């Protein structure tokens, strides 16, 4: 199991990359910064699992909270509106 690098409250940015394969990081959130809401535990890497490999060591998975107005240009609504996603550690970098 890979050690968790981030803690709740840490500011992180999703890597802006476009590798081929079974990636569980949606395109719409790549490149954006948010705050770790919780650590969900560690899970086998889905990108490896999809290639029939074991996906180990398990990767820490985070719930990351993004402000809607940071993600969508011209977002209308409450400035406190947020979007929360699960992001694997190897898709995050400190921000």
């Amino acid at each position, binding site marked *: 199991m890979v050690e968790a690098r981030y803690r709740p409250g840490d500011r992180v940015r999703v890597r802006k990359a476009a590798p081929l394969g079974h990636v569980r990081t949606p395109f719409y959130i790549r490149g954006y910064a948010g705050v770790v809401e919780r650590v969900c535990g560690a899970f086998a890497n889905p990108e490896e699992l999809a290639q029939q490999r074991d996906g180990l060591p398990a990767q820490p998975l985070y719930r990351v909270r993004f402000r*809607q107005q940071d993600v969508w240009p011209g977002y209308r*609504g409450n400035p406190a509106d947020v979007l929360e996603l699960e992001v694997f550690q190897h898709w995050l970098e400190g921000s």
Partner: protein
Amino acid sequence: MKDLGAYRPLDYFQLMEVSLRELLVEKGVVSEDAIAGAMAAMRERGPERGAAMAARAWLDPAYKARMLADGSQAAEELGFEVPGLRLIVVENTPRTHNVIVCTLCSCYPRMLLGLPPEWYKSKPYRSRVVREPRKVLAEFGLKVSPKVAIRVHDSNADMRYMVLPMRPAGTDGWAEERLAALVTRDSLIGVAIPVLPKKPKTRKS
């Protein structure tokens, strides 16, 4: 042209499913009966389990705290087996409204809510609710006050989500089963809120 009626040849994935299923039966890994039974159970399951959890949480603050800390354990506490499910329960409050989506496919806590509705799996819902949640919720008939913050939860990896709706006013003293009957599937996804049944109008005859 020959009229084929409602007949459609199997598509690639349907054919794969049938082939795999027949092979598993032939090799004795599972029986036809076990598959039919599991499918029937899946089809029959509705949101009752999720509704029961919500009603219990409304009545028992300690249960609610445990549910928000560990959703799967809270399900098992009520006798609902959820092997492998990692459930996060998110609570609606007067200041926050939660709504669930899976933008990548259609992840959904089926063991607790039954099969997902068609719209949950549709591209318009999946692509729009993340970027214009207020508009989408309004289309469901749910106007969220601009003062209330909306949290959209994308169920995009290993966790599954369920909303704990707010208990409607006017339900003081209600028994757990009566409360549970107010909790609809849509309110557990977050596109609706529980409402009291309207009193039938007295008709003039």
